[in-house]
């Protein structure tokens, strides 16, 4: 069945505004000043013959002189004593840990250049998210401190140590409090170090606070079941997921793990078994998770609690106070439907809420207990330790400082001056503390208020460990000598507390030998090789809920009323984390800044997302600056019209507006943390605010308004019902013409092809950053993205489609007349060079810089390219990228990659491209060549899976499969044989090498 849905890339395309139509015809974002040149000075002036000859002579002389330069003498400096394990030219892999996920670090000649997931990791199973991929760049961040700082002066460690020790002793003798403030610490050794420190200084307390907190869930579990833990959610056991604002695929708790689990119920294997989970998302802003849902309904933050009350009532829970959602009949209907489906899926369903409100989370617990999900999809007995921050403790800590009770404070991986909602109260209170020490690697917002900055190692430079979930322990091992004069924070604490062991490496070894290694019977070497130790999980117990919900209901209703208080320009402000920047800790990472938001495709900025129809009502247009105001804080942000945003709400991302992040990340966007409000001892992400138009506009750097798909069907989707009837439904195969202008390309040996499952791709963007790291792709910065000059070889196209109660819309006029831009569905489509057999780019290149290989690759020879850009114009997929600048050697790009230190991250097997040449996805040809060579050296056949391209390797959901299409047994051949396979723009018969599988939506007709 042919899908007759209408897809569009952005609102401009949907409305087909005059401006957009004009622009889409142009090759460049800005019109070139050709007319000026031709009309004015350019042609009208007469060049006298003598001038002409002078210029000619000078030119000839200059060129000759320039060509006469001596060939530079290259030095080749071998090791004095070569480390046994290093062979120049061959990468080494070490296991380490990023953010609780075991990873493999690829090093070349002693410098880490790429992070990959460790297949032994029980959370990621070999995949990695965008932040993990980008974390290697933080190692080479030129904005980091080069050594310890004491009272704003560079100092050495002995001075720092004696100063801190003396101050600590004073605090101890005075009986004053000592506080260690950190984000969640789940490292057993760090915890032990802090405990040892506390035994030396008995007034010490460890305060954990997370920028984005999960205190609500932990408190609710304590209240409901007596267990103050963050449970482990099992999406791989859930057939029905109903989420209220929990962005579990993007940012919520453990998105990498959840993505893999979630997709295991929706991927090809699952569909072949004729099964697919169903996912209903109620949320305010259109999140990555919402964009993947089978049914998504916009819901204001004030309606969330009531909706959950209604759901609980509809499921048969005894609760008073449920009331219909007066202004949201769609959600009301959906809740009734969800209740019906949930009752049918007892024990294999999952109800979630992204709220940090204890009452709402208690209600969610009640619903899950009612559905019998504990012990099945929710595991309280093998809890997650990824977040353990406690908002109330931190508030109490600020009060303690205010009262002058605290004499020493240490900040470990925590930056409250930026992240705390009341940063003024915090900074004022902090000034009363005598000893202020920060372990930050740079002079960030908090560190600049401290007397001592004792820079901590980057994780790739240090030893460490982690215990992200119950029974799973991972090790952090260094892969490079510390670049700067930094030191493990733990080592500092050990020295300052006069510990018997002051070497942190030794301390970790002792700690592990005593605990995990002894219990599991593994040796230290085995641990380093494998990267982790996991113990068998405990049996997850079933829990029943028996609390009285009356007070909970009252709180929920009161909060809801507070949020929804009316007013003409009143809005409900929703504060969220986006996928790339998150809480803003790695805001100085240009790879992450340039990674487009999965839904809005905005880079390098945050913005106020508003529903288009609501904006029209307010008289606000796209990119207008608006002022968002609460009684405490005001910011001015550009508007982004976001289809699917709940009407009457505005969403603003956290993590921006850093003032002291570093060269690339400072003063990017606006800080939204001060909007967070403390309600019932937890920080809430929703707040009542007002919006008004400010003067001026601001152009956001978006990547996906650049091209138009001109109404062609680029993405294909079907419904589960139709798929079960006819697996080929939605692929649009009927229209393919079978005649060729060109001869067939022969691929006698290998034929490298790729299969991408649109039903597995969540659009998270990990592949984009992995590709950046693997292929030396430059960062171009905000201004260049505005000029449509981003360089990503792989992009994820996001297409919107409108659902109008099951009516399919075909004609453009009908769509633009729709009142409702709430109800959009989204498809994410990774798009890179399709390596067409009949590639349109190849036929137009005047210098044969892009030609076909006998292995099915579309090759790009950079040194042949003369930059006519004909190929980019002739590419139907718009995947070719032109180097407008020499990004590696141009002072305009100093903040990104143009400095010697940052360039240490480059992959030495891939050239950096110079100005004036075209580049594009090479299907990681360096990896193909390396894989083939390994097979040749070992004198064996090439096995399927020997070669993994970077995007495939990191994909959390295995949506990308690469391999040899000539091998009928290869995974990719099997995937391409799936009935769901279609090729993008199949009808133009360019024979792409990348096949896609249709998106299947598990929709239920109401």
């Amino acid at each position, binding site marked *: 069945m042919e899908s007759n849905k209408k897809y569009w890339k952005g609102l401009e395309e949907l409305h087909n505004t005059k401006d957009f139509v004009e622009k889409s015809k142009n090759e460049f974002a800005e019109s070139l000043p050709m007319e000026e040149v031709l009309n004015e000075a350019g042609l009208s002036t007469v060049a006298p013959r003598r001038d002409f000859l002078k210029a000619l002579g000078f030119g000839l002389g200059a060129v000759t002189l320039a*060509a006469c330069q001596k*060939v530079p*003498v*290259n*030095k*080749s*400096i*071998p*090791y*004095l*004593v*070569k480390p046994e394990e290093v*062979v*120049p*030219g*061959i990468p080494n892999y070490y296991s380490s840990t990023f953010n609780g996920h075991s990873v493999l670090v690829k090093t070349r000649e002693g410098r880490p250049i790429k992070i990959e997931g460790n297949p032994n990791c029980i959370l990621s199973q070999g995949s990695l998210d965008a932040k993990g991929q980008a974390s290697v760049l933080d190692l080479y961040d030129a904005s980091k401190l080069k050594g310890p700082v004491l009272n704003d002066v560079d100092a050495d460690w002995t001075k720092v140590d004696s100063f801190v020790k003396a101050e600590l002793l004073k605090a101890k003798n005075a009986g004053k409090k000592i506080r260690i403030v950190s984000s969640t610490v789940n490292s057993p050794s760090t915890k032990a170090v802090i405990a040892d420190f506390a035994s030396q200084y008995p007034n010490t307390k460890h305060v954990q606070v997370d920028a984005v907190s999960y205190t609500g869930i932990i408190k609710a579990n304590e209240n409901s079941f007596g267990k103050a833990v963050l449970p482990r959610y099992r999406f791989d056991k859930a057939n029905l997921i109903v989420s209220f604002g929990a962005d579990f695929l993007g940012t919520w708790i453990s998105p990498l793990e959840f993505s893999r689990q979630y997709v295991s119920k929706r991927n090809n294997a699952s569909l072949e078994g004729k099964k697919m989970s169903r996912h209903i998302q109620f949320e305010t802003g259109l999140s990555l998770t919402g964009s993947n849902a089978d049914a998504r309904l916009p819901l204001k933050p004030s309606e969330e609690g009531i909706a959950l009350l209604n759901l609980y009532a509809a499921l048969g829970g005894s609760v008073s106070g449920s009331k219909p959602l007066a202004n949201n009949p769609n959600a009301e209907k959906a809740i009734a439907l969800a209740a019906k489906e949930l009752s049918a899926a007892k024990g294999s369903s999952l109800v979630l809420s992204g709220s940090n409100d204890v009452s709402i989370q208690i209600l969610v617990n009640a619903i899950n207990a009612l559905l019998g999900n504990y012990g099945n999809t929710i595991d309280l007995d093998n809890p997650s330790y990824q977040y353990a921050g406690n908002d109330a403790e931190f508030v109490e800590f600020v009060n303690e400082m205010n009262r002058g009770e605290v004499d020493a404070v240490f900040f470990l991986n925590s930056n409250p001056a930026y992240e705390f909602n009341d940063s003024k109260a915090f900074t004022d209170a902090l000034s009363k503390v005598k000893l202020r020490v920060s372990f930050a690697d740079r002079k960030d917002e908090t560190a600049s208020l401290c007397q001592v900055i004792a820079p901590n190692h980057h994780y790739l430079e240090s030893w460490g460990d982690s215990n992200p979930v119950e029974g799973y322990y991972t090790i952090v091992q260094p892969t490079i000598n510390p670049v700067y004069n930094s030191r493990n924070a733990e080592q500092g604490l050990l020295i300052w507390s006069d510990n018997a062991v002051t070497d942190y490496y030794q301390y970790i070894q002792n700690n592990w030998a005593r605990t995990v290694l002894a219990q599991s019977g593994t040796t230290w070497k085995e641990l380093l090789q494998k990267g982790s130790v996991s113990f068998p999980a405990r049996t997850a117990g079933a829990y029943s809920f028996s609390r009285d919900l009356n007070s909970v209901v009252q709180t929920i209703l009161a909060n809801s009323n507070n949020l929804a208080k009316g007013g003409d320009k009143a809005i409900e402000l929703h504060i969220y984390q986006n996928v790339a920047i998150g809480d803003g800790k790695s805001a100085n990472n240009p790879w992450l800044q340039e990674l487009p938001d999965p839904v809005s495709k905005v880079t390098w900025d945050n913005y106020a997302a508003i529903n288009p129809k609501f904006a029209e009502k307010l008289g606000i247009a796209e990119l207008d600056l608006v002022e968002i105001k609460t009684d405490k804080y005001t910011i001015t942000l550009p508007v982004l019209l976001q289809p699917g945003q709940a009407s009457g709400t505005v969403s603003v991302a956290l993590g921006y507006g850093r003032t002291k992040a570093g060269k690339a990340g400072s003063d990017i966007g606006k800080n939204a943390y001060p909007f967070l409000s403390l309600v019932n001892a937890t920080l809430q992400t929703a707040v009542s605010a007002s919006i008004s138009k400010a003067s001026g506009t601001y152009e956001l750097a978006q990547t996906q308004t650049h091209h138009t798909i001109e109404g062609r069907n680029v993405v294909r989707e079907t419904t589960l019902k139709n798929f079960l009837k006819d697996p080929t439904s939605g692929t649009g195969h009927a229209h393919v013409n079978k005649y060729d202008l060109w001869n067939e390309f*022969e691929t*006698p*040996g290998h034929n490298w092809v790729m299969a991408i499952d649109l039903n597995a791709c969540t659009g998270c963007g990990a592949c984009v950053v992995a590709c950046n790291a693997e292929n030396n792709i430059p960062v171009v910065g905000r201004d260049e993205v505005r000029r449509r000059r981003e360089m990503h070889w792989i992009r994820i196209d996001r297409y919107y489609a409108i659902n109008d109660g099951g009516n399919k819309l075909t004609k453009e006029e009908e769509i633009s007349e729709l009142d409702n831009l709430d109800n959009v569905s989204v498809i994410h489509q990774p798009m890179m060079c399709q390596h067409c057999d009949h590639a349109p780019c190849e036929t137009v290149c005047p210098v044969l810089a892009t*030609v076909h*290989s*006998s*292995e099915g*690759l579309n*090759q*790009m*020879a*950079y*040194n*042949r390219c003369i930059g006519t850009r004909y190929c980019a114009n002739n590419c139907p997929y718009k995947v070719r990228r032109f180097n407008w600048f020499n990004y590696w050697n141009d002072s305009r790009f100093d903040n990104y990659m143009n400095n010697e230190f940052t360039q240490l991250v480059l992959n030495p*097997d*891939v*050239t950096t491209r110079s100005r004036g040449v075209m580049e594009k996805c*090479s299907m990681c*040809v*360096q990896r193909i*060549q390396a894989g*083939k*060579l390994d*097979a*040749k*050296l070992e*004198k*064996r*056949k*090439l096995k399927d899976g020997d070669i993994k391209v970077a995007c495939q390797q990191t994909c959390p959901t295995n949506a990308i499969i690469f391999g040899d299409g000539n091998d009928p047994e290869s995974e990719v051949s099997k995937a391409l044989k799936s009935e769901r396979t279609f090729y993008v723009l199949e009808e133009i018969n360019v024979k792409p090498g990348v096949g896609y599988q249709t998106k299947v939506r598990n929709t239920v007709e109401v």
Partner: protein
Amino acid sequence: MRSISLFFRSVTKSLILVSFLSSVAVSSASAQDAAAGAAIFKQKCTACHGIEKAVVGPALKGIDTKYDEAWLIKWIKNAPAFIASGDAQAVKASEYSPAMMSAFPELSDDDIKNIVAYVKVGDPKPAADPNAAQGGGSGSGADEGVSNFMLFGLLAVIIIAFLVVLVLNKVIQTLERVMLQKKGIEVEEEPVAKDRLAGLKKLTKNKKFILFIVLVCIVFLGSAGWKGMWETGVHTGYQPVQPIKFSHQLHAGINKIDCQYCHSGAFSSKNASIPSLNVCMNCHNYVTASEKYDGKTSPEIMKIYQALDYNEDTKQYGTNTKPVEWIRIHNLPDLAYFNHSQHVSVAGIECQKCHGPIQTMEEVYQYAPLTMKWCINCHRETEVNHKDNPYYDKLIAAHDKLKKGEKVTAAVLGGLECSKCHY
């Protein structure tokens, strides 16, 4: 020019070798023992002993006067047994070092006598044979001088011959004039010169002649320019002065050390890799070439020790290290990816194919042009080494279907495609 000078060099070298050998052959019969002893000494003893200098064992100079020959034979044949037998001198000798000297039962009494003879005589003194005594570097300088001398000689001969022709010409002219004068014909000198200039002037007005000259100039300059441009960036023959005068001729040629011993990366990695100094020290721990330097360590080997901050006497490594900055000779541009292991291990190509007669190079120079044309030509001509390598089975089978009977060169398997080397 390179080939000419190489030719001269090899000729002079063989001459020197022949003269040296014959001089050795002529020298006294007693030296026969020492020469045989030298061979055995170098094979068996140098790992632990020097003549002038203590290595692991003591310096051996004067050993012939210290011990009598019979004692020495017993000691060398089986020192442990000799010590165990309780010989007082042997027990005393064993106190030199805790490491016991190995037994050499395979040596005959004559062998040992020869060794002792060699130790007594030592290496031939520098004065005795200038060619052998001078270090590698200066030797090559002498070679250069010979070939240059011959070139200059040739040039001088040509110039002299030209001058002779000129002089003879003048003489003939004078004689002719004298003869004419004798015959009574008056010869006016001046007009002749005028006529000559006039002839030249006439020539400059001859358009055909001018055209010819211009054409010759254009062809000459054009061809020189064309050739120059083709060779821009081609550094064949590039032979920079290296920080250490390392001789491949000595190591790979004479001592026949396998290339892989030092350039182990060539077999497994993209880079052939210059050996790190710990590899040098495997041998130069005791090989100091002191026999050529009056018992002192060779100044070139000293550079290794200095780089590692190694103290010869105490055999301790210090911390004041300084890496050796070799000058890179074979320098592919960054845009080309080249992998040694593919060529050396998979294809089984000899190092010499690209690096030339490396075993004869006193100092390394770039042998191959390293241009893309050169790469491509080789890929066109070289058959793929697919025997016993199952990786190629499928490719070869597919290829056989396509082109029966032809050579399966690298080019046939896609070896000319851009992204085999450029990415």
